[in-house]
Structures are given as C-alpha cells and as structure tokens.
C-alpha cells in the first residue's frame, strides 16, 4: 500500500526540480522536490506512493529531472486531470507510469490526501483501501505501454539494438 498525495494546484517543473539545485545529483535534487509548495513531501514520500494532480501536471521546462525526482523518490504512478506534453513524454521515457483521469465519472471524494492506495499497472486500476473502492483508468496505447514495461526508452533501445 502506498500513500495518496493529492494536489489541487498546478504543479510546474520549477517546484518539482528547483533551478537552484539542478547542478546537484539526483539524490540531492530530490530532497528539494516540491519544497516550495509542500515542504514535507520529499522526506515523507515512500515507494509505491501515488500522486494525484490537477490540470497541466508538470508544466514548464523540459527538464527531465522533474519526472526523474518523482521516480527516484519511489512514486509508482502519477494520475492527473491533464499533463503538460513534455513532462508526459519524459515520464514515459523514464518508465514512470502516467495516466490521465477521465473527466467522467469524477473521482470518488473518498480519495483524499493521505489515504492508502495501491496502483496496479497491468489492470490500470487505482485501489483505495478504506473504504474499498476502485477506479479504472484508460489503458495507454500499446507503443507507450511497451516503453514503460521495458523500463523506459533507454532499456527499450538497448533491447532493440541487441536484437539487431
């Protein structure tokens, strides 16, 4: 079980990977992830946690570290009302699952910040522990699913080059 991190506001790349720490290695940069808006996030997030975000998740620069810090911190999946395009591509290329929340039906209000959840990639369902609820998300196109299951673009290419 992971924890659900709910964000109402739009999260941009500058709060995910602040420019000032961009020279630092990923473990150091990760400590400052979201500190401008949620200072306790980086020290409390655990492997398997799920981020539930609002509109235009990851808007801003092309810096891939914005997705990489979340993967590094153990986030298992990001679900958002909508994604900024570059962030979406970056997350998939790093093997971090991203899903767009359908507008209908809306997410049950029991999914509150801090609730216990589990995300199952194969069935693309988000499971809430208490009360027991399930939300099914639209599966990704096959091409993108493969990139993620291969572990991201680099492993995907490694596989492709070794097959040749």
């Amino acid at each position, binding site marked *: 079980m992971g924890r659900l991190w709910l964000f109402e506001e739009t999260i941009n790349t500058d709060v995910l990977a602040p420019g000032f720490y961009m*020279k630092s290695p990923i473990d150091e940069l990760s400590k400052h992830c979201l500190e401008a808006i949620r200072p306790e996030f980086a020290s409390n997030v655990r492997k398997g946690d799920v981020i539930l975000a609002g509109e235009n998740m990851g808007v801003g620069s*092309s810096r*891939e570290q914005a997705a990489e810090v979340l993967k590094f911190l153990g986030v298992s999946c990001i679900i958002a009302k909508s994604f*900024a395009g570059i962030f979406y*591509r970056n997350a998939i290329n790093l093997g971090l699952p991203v899903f767009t929340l359908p507008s209908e039906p809306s997410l049950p209000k029991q999914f509150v910040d801090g609730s216990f959840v589990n995300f199952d990639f194969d069935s693309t369902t988000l499971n809430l522990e208490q009360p027991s609820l399930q939300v099914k998300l639209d599966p990704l196109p096959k091409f993108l699913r493969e990139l993620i299951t291969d572990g991201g673009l680099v492993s995907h*290419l490694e596989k492709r*080059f070794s097959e040749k």
Partner: protein
Amino acid sequence: MNTLAQKIIANACNKVSVEPGEIVVCKVDLAMIHDSGGPRRVKPILEKLNRKVWDKEKVVVVTDHYVPIESEETRAIQELTQKWVLDQDINNFYDQQGICHVVVPEKGHLKPGMFCVGGDSHSPTGGAFGAYMFGVGATEMAGVLATGEIWLKVPETIFIRWKGKLDNLVTAKDMMLATCRQIGMGGGQYQAIQYIGEAIYNLSIQERMTMSNMAAELGAQTGLIAPDKKTVDYIERSDGQVPKNWMEFCIDTPTSNATVFEFDASSLSPQIAAPHSPENAENAEEFSNTVFDIAYIGACTGAKYVDLAAAASVLKGRRIASSVSLKVAPASLQDEKKALNDGTLKILQDAGAEFLPNSCGICAGYGKDRLTEGQVCLSSTARNFQGRMGAPSSRVYLASPYTVAASAVVGKMIDPRELDILNG
C-alpha cells in the same frame, strides 16, 4: 486538407499524408542541445547504448545555461561539454555565444519544412522559420541522437489569428501575454499552434520568434508561422541555404473543423503578467504604481536585438529611477555587437543599465544575480513561476522591453505609452 504541421510531419515520416492522432516515427533534420540538458545528460545514455550521434552535421550544441563559468561545478559542466563535442566530432558548436534559441537561427540552421527537436522547452521558437520544432527531455534526446528518430502523435493544429495593426509601443510579447490570459497555459493542449493573420506577418522575424517561443507557455508542442519573404531574407542574411521548395510550406488556411482563436491587435494595450504565471496578464495600466526592485531585459524571448532596441528607444536621453536597478543580458553575442555598433548599448548604459553575459542568467535562476528573498522583478522573460528566477519569496512580473524600460524610468510599473505624458 493538410495543415503546415501535417505537411512537415508527413515529409519527416515519409508518408503522403498523416492524420491527427496517428502515432508516427519521424526522421529528425536537426537536434539542438545545450549545456544543461545536453552532453552531461546524454553522454552516459549514449555510452550505455554504445552509440555515437547518428549524424554529426545534424547536431547543434550551444552553451548558454551555466555561463559564465563561476564555480568548480560549472567549470566541470563546460569542460565535459567541450570534450564531448570533440569526441563526437561535432562542428556546429557555439560556445558561450548566446542563448540557443537565438543562436541556432542566427547561424542559419533553421529553415522552412524542417523537422527539429531541441533539448529545451522553448524549442518551439524554431516555428518562426516554418520549421516543426519542439522540446524534449534528455533521455528522449539521447534516443534521438542514437537513432535520428523520434515518435510523435500527430497533433491537431490550433490557429491563433491576430488581425489589425499594433499600436506604437505594443509588441509580440504583449500579444503573447494576452494570448496566455485568454486561452490559459494549458490552452495549447500539446497540439501544434499556428499563428496567422496580418499582425503576425507584419512582425519582424525576431518578434515572430517571441510568438513561437511562448507557444511553450500555452502548453503547445510547437508554434508555427508560415514562411514568407521576410523568413527567406533572414535565412539568407544568416548564411543559411534556403530550400528551393520553401513555398510549399506557405500553408496557413485553417482546416474547416479547426479551433481558431481570434485576436485584434489594434485594440491591444501593453500587458503585464503578475506572479506566478504568464496567464495572470492584464493591461499594464492595471498595475500602475506597483513598485519593484529590478528591471530585467533578458532571455531568449526578451533580449534579442529588437528587444534591446525597443528598450533603448524608451530610455534614450533618460535615466532609470534610483529605486531600481536595470540589468540587461543581450540574448546573443551577435545581437550585442549589433547593438554596440549602432549605439543601442550606449543608450542603455547611459540610462543606468548594468550588462550581464549573453546567457540564460537570471531567467533560469542561475548565477550570482539570481533574485534574493523578497525581491520583485519586472522582466522581459517568458516565464514567472514561483522561485524560478531565484529565492522562493521573490516575485516576477512579465512585460515587454518597452514596458520594462519605461517602468524602470518611473520606478513603478506603467503603460509605456504614458511615459511621454508623465515624464516629458
């Protein structure tokens, strides 16, 4: 009917035509990388894949983020960059000569019909030349460098039409801030935007670059402008070879079911966007009397030659208020030289400007001039997210170079058209 975006993508994936929503694999004509997202990030991946760049003539490397070298860390990044460029035998290397989005076209690399990627979110700037150009992250860039290919979901084209004629002291930056307010930062929906209408074609090429650059602020994948005579002249002046078939890319009629946003340039006032989003734009007069500490003329979008000249036209014979400092970071060495030669820099200097290197500088929150706690900046850059240009408590307002310069004279934000009335 095909849009310009579809035409370029179809060429790049070697198909007769493509439809929005289709996932295709395209051949890349040019890949641009900079010192921050470039070599230091792609090198380990290429090594892991045991690959060199697929075509060294199609790769352009620019150093602009960690410039100037000011610490051991930044020195290491620049040395790594230089060594990588040598190892890969890349000729197109522009070291500390300005910001990538300005340097790459001024060296004649971008042409109508090209399909390009850049390792930076403002890569849509290339759209001003009728090239399909978009930003990607480092891993994806490494994939491009290894294979020369990239996957793409063929976008819809969203048209933004600007009719009418701009008033004096109103610029492309004002057009874009107004567009951000109107359609929002997600309004581009990661589709292709194409700017059309007489007010667009009346803009100079560098002003068009501001439009295309800020397609990123609309969340679009790219921001195209169909090429015309001005485009061709610019490329020729930049020693670029204009493709013989460039006229095939003069496509700008909206498809029948396309989304078209209509704007009227003739009723547009200078804009200011409040912290912390470009979409918080209002007419500049709404902010009158707002005080600030730093006036910044900088960045790929706000310190090209046209922007320096705009600021100088306001500052000629004037001095900035003692309560503010004016910092100017010309976007490229070439533009700085031009401004030096025709006296533009002298005007800025006499007005009290302090000059910074030809690099991203404060725009990216790098360097010793980054904003400190609580500082308020009125900036000609593209983006004012919280903490981007420095300390988390700093606040950034966005405006055109005219507005930044005029406000610096008064020490308070104003509509630049008021300066003559106020200040004589």
